[in-house]
């Protein structure tokens, strides 16, 4: 199926040219990333058809439908859950449990955000939690800024913990063959450590703020959380569906089900149980993202078919075979730095086939496995550093614009850069320990 051509041919340069042009177009954000990726994909297939290295069926074979359907399935479930008000209900309960004390509120909402974003997508998590946070802070006469910035950071960290928490993880899971439990075992401890480390740093940054005395605590305690629950029966049913889906995820490797099958199973179950307006649910799925991922797979597939990625893998292999530790650390920080400025999905989709090639080239699994986890840690946490690095941050910033202290680049970096540094450093420690102890092998 794959046509390996010798380097230096016209085909190679054409494919490389289309790929680089498309990626530059995506990263400069002069036009919408979905349009840029679609044009790149169409150009790659056209050039491939005329030069004979790629065509529509090869392009379709390059698309990782596991990733696409996992994303669609999760988004459908989230859209149905969103309509029930269950998330807001839980967040109010947590705020009340803190009795309005800023320290507990920050830690409590932070834990909830991280936990929710481990299973829901980060944007939805922030869209649900950020407005609520602003109202709670208003009631208590506290600035919402420390809560919002830390929540966005915690949402990113929570996404690292599971296979479904972040698109980067979904793609890595599909490409590497690691299952839900593998991610949970290898990355959830990292996410938890990064969460704790960042919390300590955040408390240090906001040391004066968290000692403040909140006002109107009785008003917060007087909120009837049940009013937030728009559809109690629906919330309960969705709770059961999500519970079943999580159980299936925990058992999917043992059952032989693909993660995408589990997600679509959950989506179908949720649709049958909740009977929502199908068109409304489907219009809430972020199709432009799905389209974008699909086009990226086609684009990178063209590169794979001319053999560019093999060359790249060969270079990397010489490296990784020599010293897996250095290769992992470089991959982690490289991905961490790049993801801060560019889309981490675009980065991961391009790097996954390279890592797959490494195993074809005979790199032993104990050398390959740490690379996968390093890529996940770097790509997911890298987005923390800049205000455009992650979708959770972007959406939180736009929500914060209605407050008196909108998040600007400086305010974000004050929280994001320390979190990024703590995250990548702790991640490095885990990778080093994991390689030396054999836990990541």
């Amino acid at each position: 199926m794959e046509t390996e051509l010798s380097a230096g041919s016209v085909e190679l340069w054409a494919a490389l040219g289309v790929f680089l042009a498309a990626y530059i177009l995506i990263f400069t954000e002069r036009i919408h990333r979905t349009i840029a990726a679609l044009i790149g994909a169409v150009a790659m297939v056209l050039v491939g058809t005329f030069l004979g290295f790629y065509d529509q069926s090869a392009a379709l074979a390059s698309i990782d439908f596991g990733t696409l359907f996992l994303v669609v399935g999760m988004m459908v479930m989230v859209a149905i859950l969103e309509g029930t008000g269950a998330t807001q209900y839980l967040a109010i309960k947590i705020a009340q449990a803190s009795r309005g004390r800023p320290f507990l509120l920050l830690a409590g909402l932070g834990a909830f955000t991280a936990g929710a974003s481990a299973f829901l997508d980060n944007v939805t998590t922030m869209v649900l939690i950020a407005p609520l946070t602003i109202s709670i802070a208003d009631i208590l006469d506290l600035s919402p800024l420390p809560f919002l910035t830390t929540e966005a950071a915690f949402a990113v960290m929570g996404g690292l913990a599971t296979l479904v928490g972040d698109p980067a993880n979904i793609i890595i899971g599909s490409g590497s063959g690691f299952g839900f439990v593998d991610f949970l075992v290898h990355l959830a401890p990292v996410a938890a450590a990064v969460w704790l480390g960042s919390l300590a740093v955040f408390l240090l940054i906001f040391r004066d703020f968290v000692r403040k005395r909140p006002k109107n605590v009785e008003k917060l305690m007087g909120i009837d959380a049940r009013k937030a629950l728009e559809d109690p029966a629906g919330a309960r049913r969705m709770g059961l569906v999500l519970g079943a889906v999580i159980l299936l995820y925990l058992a999917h490797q043992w059952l032989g089900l693909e993660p995408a099958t589990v997600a679509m199973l959950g989506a179908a179950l949720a649709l049958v149980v909740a009977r929502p307006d199908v068109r409304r649910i489907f219009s809430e799925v972020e199709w432009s993202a799905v389209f974008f991922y699909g086009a990226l797979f086609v684009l990178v597939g063209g590169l794979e078919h001319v053999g560019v990625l093999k060359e790249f893998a060969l270079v990397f292999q010489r490296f990784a075979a020599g010293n897996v530790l250095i290769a992992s650390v470089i991959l982690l920080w490289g991905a961490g730095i790049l993801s801060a400025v560019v889309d981490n999905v675009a980065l991961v989709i391009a790097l996954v086939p390279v890592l797959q090639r490494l195993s074809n080239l005979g790199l032993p699994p104990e050398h390959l496995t740490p690379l996968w986890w390093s890529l996940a840690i770097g790509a997911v946490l890298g987005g923390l550093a800049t205000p455009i690095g992650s979708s959770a941050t972007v959406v939180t910033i736009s929500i914060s614009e209605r407050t008196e202290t909108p998040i600007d680049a400086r305010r974000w970096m004050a929280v994001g850069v320390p979190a990024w540094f703590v995250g990548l450093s702790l991640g490095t420690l885990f990778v080093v320990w994991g390689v030396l102890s054999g836990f990541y092998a």
Partner: protein
Amino acid sequence: MIPVVASVIFLATYALIFSGRVHRTIAALAGAVAMIATGIGLGFYDFDLAMEAVDFNTVGLLLGMMTIVGIIQPTGAFQYFAIRLSRMSRGRPWLLFLGLSWFTALVSTVLDNVTTVVIVAPVTVSIAEVLGVNPVPFLLGEAVLSNIGGVATLVGDPPNIIIGSAAGFSFNAFLTHLGPVVLTVLLVSTALFPFFFRRELWKRPENLENLERLDARRALVDPATMRKMFWVLGFTVLLYFVHEPLHLPPGLVALIGAALGLLWVRPKVEEVMNLIHWDVLLFFIGLFVVVGGLESAGVLGLISQGLGSLARSGVFIAAVVILWLSAFMSAVVDNIPFTIAMVPVIKGLATQGMVVEPVWWALALGVGFGGNATPIGATANVVVISVSERTPYPISYRRWVSSATPVAFLSCVLGTVFLILGIETGWFL
């Protein structure tokens, strides 16, 4: 055991779709998931096989054309043409019906039905809004006539392309053998539809006075974008005509058009995405997965094996049986996988010494006309139903069965008559 389980899931899915108890997309997705999960359990199907079963060429075609339409929609171009066409008809619904459905049928003989219907349907809905009439007869007529029109030529319908390449029939062979039948069926159905829709088509539209006051140019909000998109659409249609020598599959052609449109117009991507009928796309993906499971479980193979015994009964009976069987099958399953499954069967009949030319024509007629019998029998049907669901007049399954199904039945009868005549006179041999 495995074929039985797969058939049960298949039948349950279809029962759920036709019952109307849940939205057809939910039913198809639930069926697809059930088929995959059972397939993994029993070892006959899995996620990868399911993805291979999905005809992404059809999905890409729908996606590309719907994107182009999604860019055109906000410009007001559809309303513009709706007002112009309504003026030309002087508000006579039956004249509009004739014009629109024959236009659709003619275009469908050279273009894909899906492409045609995706573009004509929004114009139709706008016309109905302008005139204040019910769009259902128009949409129904367009879907049915586009399916009939597609039978006439080699390129009109995907099954014809498959049959043409398997049997070695030329473009002219299709036109001369199937053209007369298709023309007759088109005439008969346009005679029947005004009767089925007599209440709507002979009524004087309510908004006739409004029509005088409407200014077509005022409806056109964004003429610059409309002009750009006409170039894009024209270029896309041009590519369809030369797609074969260029080795560009239709799905890719539609996506090329979509990419060009997006690049040139630079619309708000999220808004365009929301105008795409995702429920239709997911419905077909689900259906392909369900039928693919049936195929992997060997059910379609069993059916074709059973047909092998037709060789003993002579070409006459074989052709008639194939016509009605494929009409029935393509009313329920997508006609592409069914046609693909029938190709080896008919080739098998040929190796047993039968003259199979009439059987190939019977297959083309059956799968082409049969799709009209049910609301989900052809892609164009699902598209117009989904479009109608965004208006106050959704097309009910009952409405479909009471008008399109008789037409489908009658067209199969006419097809049989022509087939018999063709065999008797030696024309089809």
